[in-house]
């Protein structure tokens, strides 16, 4: 199935993302060239995943996998098959946080396999105002488990206009993708999370203005 996913990314996801968003990328040089690596991005739209799959070079994009909520994407069997095999999601069972099991186990397995995983630490899609919500600390636990994996902050500007939460029809609008310098696990969770948030806000400050009300 991997080759089919690869083909679909190159032949469908990329042209669609380019058509819908223009995909103005800044800072490609900061992207990891091999796994294990973690990409951290803000999240306002399903377009985000499509955009993230289109910014990587073709030879590595097969390794790129978005972490996604299993309670949302694996609920329906058809969407689930699609999400697992074609989008290549790493399931995160948000709804089982309290059960005591390690809901990050699939993500850790993916990193152990040398994948590049995309984490949206806001936990869900925000509104298109592009404010950043509180970041959940799961990504810190991943970084702690893989201290050598670079954690690359990415700010996606404007995807919430293309396909906001609750809308079904996407509308083409330009999006900017700003990639920052990777940060490393320093040993303390709160420090790491603060650093990550600051890095995202710095990228946001460099993004073109978003006149969206």
């Amino acid at each position, binding site marked *: 199935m991997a080759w089919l996913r690869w083909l679909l990314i190159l032949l469908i996801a990329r042209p669609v993302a380019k058509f819908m968003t223009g995909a103005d990328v800044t800072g490609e040089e900061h992207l990891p060239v091999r796994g294990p690596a973690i990409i951290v991005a803000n999240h306002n739209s399903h377009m985000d995943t499509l955009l993230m799959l289109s910014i990587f070079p073709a030879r590595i994009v097969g390794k790129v996998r978005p972490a996604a909520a299993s309670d949302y994407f694996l609920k329906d069997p058809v969407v689930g098959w699609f999400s697992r095999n074609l989008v290549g999601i790493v399931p995160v069972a948000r709804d089982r946080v309290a059960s005591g099991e390690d809901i990050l186990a699939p993500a850790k397995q993916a990193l152990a396999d040398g994948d590049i995983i995309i984490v949206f630490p806001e936990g869900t899609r925000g509104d298109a105002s592009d404010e950043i919500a509180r970041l959940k600390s799961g990504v810190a636990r991943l970084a702690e488990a893989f201290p050598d994996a670079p954690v690359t902050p990415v700010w996606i500007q404007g995807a919430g206009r293309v396909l906001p939460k609750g809308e079904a029809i996407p509308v083409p609008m330009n999006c900017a993708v700003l990639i920052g310098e990777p940060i490393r696990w320093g040993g303390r969770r709160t420090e790491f999370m603060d650093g990550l948030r600051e890095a995202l806000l710095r990228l946001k400050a460099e993004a073109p203005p978003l*006149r969206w009300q």
Partner: protein
Amino acid sequence: MDIIARFLAEQPPALIWGLTGVVGLLVLGSVVAGVLTVSRPSKDYKELRQRIASWWVMIAILAAALLAGWPATVTLFAAVSFVALREFLSLAPTRREDRLIILAAYLAIPVNYAFIALDVYGIYLVLIPVYAFLITPWLMAVVGQTQGYLSRVALFHWGLMTCVYNIGYVAYLTRTPAIETPAGAAGLVFFLLVATEFNDVAQYVWGKLLGRHKIIPRVSPNKTWEGFIGGWLSTAALIWFAGPLFTPLSGVGLAITALVLPVAGFAGDVTMSAIKRDIGVKDTSKFIPGHGGILDRIDSLTFTAPIYFHLLAWFAVEKF
């Protein structure tokens, strides 16, 4: 090889020579950029190299479309309209409620270019200036948007007129009967683009060489009277001497085109600068590496295309 030679032989010679000249200029530009990069390692010429590399791509696409015939050229400019309108609507202030109207605005592109492809000149002329003009505010009223109503309606009108209707004139040039032009319909498009871009470059070069007196410091601080007048005279000379090779214009018509087109190009450039200043951006996007957005590249063309078309229609082309 034989097929290519035969294909080129069937093209109007002026168009082939014109394209060869442009490629020659690009080769020269590439050599200069290469020499600069090697001889002055302390300076960073990355943007200059990017600019020239993008010119190669743009010229290659344009030349291919012009040689392939009118359907390819019409399709190319429909795509240009789309990317330009997407840039414009993304920079302009919009709201979630406007998404329907944004979608409708994009729909104007295939409709506009369909009438060019079908060669229904009368409908093309009124489609956007009259009918899109009426439908946009009506749609906005239907959606129930009344806040900032007029300024928002004006925003959509501006985007549709500049990015879709005015750029459509470039495409409509390709529907000129070959018998009415010295270098085919493609030659008309080629000459418009060359004159417009030459004007931009000449203004820049004269401004760099002699520029002292600012012309509109509040909009474009780098533009000077010397640049404007130098560009005007150079482009007017280019149109006066090369115009007859590519267009059916002569005498008074040619003289008016030579005088008016450079001013139109300047006006388009300045108008887009005013919009960018209002929005607070330097470039409209990063679509063309080293240049900025497509709107940064076609700003002058949104003004020169309709004027050039109308002057041709008035003075020389029987069909329009």
